């Protein structure tokens, strides 16, 4: 069990390393906000804590956690998209989009 998770961690590290090194400086700011948004995944943990009826303390902690994580997800993806929308080629953005 634990060892398998260790495998996953190591492999994911490799993937992360290889993916990130390919991101051009042009997009480093969106990258930062993107990873921020993705880090909001801790929401899945928070939700369990908030919904598992483990008593007031756990629920409260969970609730706050849910709020924080959701904030990151919503805010993060929105701002990333807002930034990426702004990057345009010389040709009309439509043309650029059409390419893909």
């Amino acid at each position, binding site marked *: 069990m634990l060892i398998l998770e260790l495998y996953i961690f190591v492999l994911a590290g490799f993937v*992360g390393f290889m993916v990130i090194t390919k991101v051009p400086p042009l997009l*480093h700011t*969106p990258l930062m906000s993107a990873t921020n948004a*993705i880090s909001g995944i801790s929401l899945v943990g928070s939700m369990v804590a908030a919904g598992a009826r483990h008593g007031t303390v756990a629920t409260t902690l969970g609730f*706050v956690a849910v709020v924080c994580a959701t904030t990151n997800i919503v805010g993060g993806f929105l*701002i990333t998209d807002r930034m990426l929308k702004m990057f345009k080629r010389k040709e009309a953005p439509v043309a650029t989009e059409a390419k893909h």
Partner: protein
Amino acid sequence: MRDTITQFSYLVASVFFILGLRSLTHPDKARRGMQLAAVGMLIALCGTLINHQILDYKWIAAGLVLGTLIGYPLGMWVPTTALPQRIAMSLSFGALAATLVGIAEYYTAFHGGEGTIAPARMAAIGFEVLLGSLTVTGSMMAFGKLQEILPGQPITYRGQNAVNALLFAGAMGLLITCIVNPAYAPAFYGMIAIAAALGVLMVIPIGGADMPVVVALLNSYCGLAAAATGFALGNSILIICGALDGASGFLLSILMSKAMNRSFANVLFGAFGGGDAPAAVSSGGQLPVRSISVEDAAIQLAYAARVIVIPGYGMAVAQAQHAVRELAELIEKRGGEVKYAIHPVAGRMPGHMNVLLAESNVPYDKLYDMDEINGEFPQTDVALVIGANDVVNPAARSDPSSPIYGMPILDADKAKHCIVLKRGMAAGFAGIENALFHAPSTSMLFGDAKASLVKLVSEVKAA
């Protein structure tokens, strides 16, 4: 059964996240890719909602609603110039979430739970809350300094590093105590408190302008905290996202310190980069400075065949990006060629200038990285420096005694003429003199970048 669905939703989500980050290798694909990632997030959430451990949805619902209400403005209304502090803030949110989940885990284990925690799991939870709380306070400090609520100068006192080292050792000791005897709550909560304190004390001695490096580093800590959460909950998607996050933060902080030609150690313990203030007064005066009138500058630009714009932190402060584009387009209409030279650490975070210029609709194929464009300065008629300072400081090339010696710079001094827009003779974040401003080929156009640019535009129109 339900569990399997949850697990698969997580698997799919992880794949989408990876594909999303992968899409950031090209601006054309990036948007689609990140939308895919957002879909992945949605899938993961739905997958979690069916989890049988969840008995009560009202607090979850409430949290989701409230979070959305807070997140929306943070996403849509924060100006691009405030991005660094924006990122620092959301970092503290993420870390807080991880920490609280860890605490909840620990708490429930001893209140109605199994009554104990296996060493491995305890270690995971320990790292989770340790890194988490450290990141929470640390990134709040960073936010404060970037938002200039807190003083930008490094705050130092004797034996500072010793104290931090001691605290760190203490935290580690408590962590081990927890692993050995999880039931001993004081150790657990004490560890959290110390880590939180450590977060503050570690950031205090770091100058405001170095915050981006700190933020990136904290980002990777936050990632590791998330990964630890994953180990604690046996949740693979948290492990994966944590690893991705960690890698990204780590690589970016490396990249920044490299581009500033400083070691991690120097950034973290160097008490360097106190923002503009300290050196601001000292500098200037002695050496000759050729100031230029808006009219003359406009003439020069109007008849220049090749212009390279060098934006810096000042452009962000002045929010001058739109005025810059206007001026550039005017020059192009008159047949001149305009390129933008982007230094890797211009501004206050990686890619800062790119975002600002993209915002003002400058096509990204006009933005050139330092290495691509440095060769072109000798054939350039006018290098227009807009609120940049350190990234064009020749001392980095010539003066071994300079703190930024060895940092690669944009060779604005090699252009035929160089016009510098800034408010006064204040130094940049490195707080040092800039010989460029005193060079014979350089003329200074004093005043707020935006104001000057607006004037230039009308003058060039007239010319």
